[in-house]
């Protein structure tokens, strides 16, 4: 039995009730439905707002982060007044302000192999709004094992991808990407940036697909991948196939329970700042300041992109972007002591691996990057 709508709800959802594909029964279906939004960031923001507005009866939010100032350029569910608050609480308050008739359940914890099945079990549809590969593989496998659709969205700079992975009716994420990319090959948004409106575009498409699935109308993106580019304003569709060798949903699947996804992908399950190369390789910003005051000629290698130098820079540093480093090693003297840095320490940690494997021994990584330098040594520099 579907729940009834009150007079207030009938008025609120009037524009839905006028569409034959939704109507009174469809709106009652939405009220009876539940969606789990994994990640309350760029994608999760529009997804959660529109599903709340649409009257989805129960919406779950998983995130363990707090709102920070760099989120507000795109994560429109949060606000300046909620910086420092838990993302799930900030989002819940905004959703209930929009629609107090719905229920918002929050999970202020990382989505991991330990809790994922328990959290996701009671939802009709999962939304993958995560920001890293380990959690994407995890969300996929959870959806496959529980037999639920996983509405996938992913973004970088000007590019977005959307699909609906439902292993009962089509391919899953692993059918497309059986192996994760080598660690560090695909930059995160914290490293490479993202156009603020892009998660709005992709997230609203995910919300649309979720509503279609709940209502049982239209053709969901099952077996199709949408590839969007904002610069070209192009929408390309690719027809997908189930991978007969898929290790979770193929006929000879050999993965039947959740695995260690951070180990599988070789990267941490979050897109975070303050990269480290490991204690033996790191140098803290104040220590670097002391070393530079003793030896002002200490060699500094800045592996950021040239346009980032306009934001902040260290004097006398040589700039070789990480992507060019392998082909420009001849410009460097391996006998000389060197400190490598980037924005927050992630790219420089990768540069360090490359340098060490090329035989450089006297290299250090500025922990936390030039942002840590701005915070701890030179507050006249901005943090970005």
């Amino acid at each position: 039995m579907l729940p009834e709508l009150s007079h207030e709800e009938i008025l609120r959802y009037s524009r839905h009730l006028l569409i034959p594909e939704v109507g009174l029964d469809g709106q009652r279906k939405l009220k009876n439905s539940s969606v789990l939004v994994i990640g309350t960031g760029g994608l999760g923001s529009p997804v959660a707002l529109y599903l709340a507005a649409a009257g989805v009866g129960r919406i779950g939010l998983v995130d363990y982060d707090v709102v920070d100032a760099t989120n507000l350029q795109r994560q429109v569910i949060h606000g300046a007044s909620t910086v420092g608050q838990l993302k799930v609480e900030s989002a819940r308050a905004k959703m209930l302000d929009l629609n107090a008739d719905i229920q918002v359940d929050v999970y202020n914890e990382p989505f991991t192999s330990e809790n994922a099945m328990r959290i996701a079990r009671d939802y009709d549809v999962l939304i993958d709004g995560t920001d890293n590969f380990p959690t994407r593989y995890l969300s996929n496998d959870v959806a496959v094992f529980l037999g639920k659709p996983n509405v996938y969205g992913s973004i970088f700079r000007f590019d977005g991808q959307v699909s609906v992975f439902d292993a009962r009716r089509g391919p899953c994420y692993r059918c497309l990407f059986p192996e994760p990319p080598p660690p560090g090959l695909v930059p995160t948004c914290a490293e490479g940036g993202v156009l603020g409106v892009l998660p709005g575009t992709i997230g609203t498409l995910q919300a649309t697909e979720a509503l279609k699935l709940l209502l049982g109308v239209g053709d969901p993106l099952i077996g199709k991948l949408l590839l969007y580019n904002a610069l070209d304003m192009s929408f390309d569709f690719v027809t997908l196939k189930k991978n007969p060798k898929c290790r979770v949903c193929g006929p000879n699947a050999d993965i039947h329970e959740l695995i260690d996804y951070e180990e599988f992908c070789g990267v941490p399950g979050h897109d975070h700042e303050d990269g480290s190369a490991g204690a033996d390789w790191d140098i803290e910003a104040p220590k670097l300041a002391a070393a530079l005051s003793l030896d002002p000629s200490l060699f500094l290698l800045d592996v950021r992109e040239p346009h980032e130098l306009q934001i902040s820079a260290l004097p006398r540093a040589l700039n070789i972007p990480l992507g060019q480093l392998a082909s420009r090693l001849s410009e460097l003297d391996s006998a000389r002591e060197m400190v490598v840095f980037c924005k927050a320490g992630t790219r420089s940690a990768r540069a360090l691996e490359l340098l060490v494997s090329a035989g450089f021994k006297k290299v250090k990584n500025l922990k936390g990057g030039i942002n840590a330098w701005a915070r701890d040594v030179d507050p006249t520099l901005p943090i970005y």
Partner: protein
Amino acid sequence: MNNIKLLFFATLRDRAGTKSMDLEIPEDLTIQGLKDKLARDFPNLAQSMSSVIVTINREYAFDEAVVPPSAEIALFPPVSGG
């Protein structure tokens, strides 16, 4: 020989330095063979070939598929941001 058109998307455009190119490949080359060739001929693409969506005329292609004559091959990288 088989003359194909290659299209690069997202971050692969930066790595390839172009949106598209025409390429002459041996007949009966598989997608895996094409990936190996691209990795050899374009060192900047080498790392990307292990995790990439390849389509033949806009349909997802597995590694064993043979590149048909005059095909349009598109390469899409995984992206992880959210």
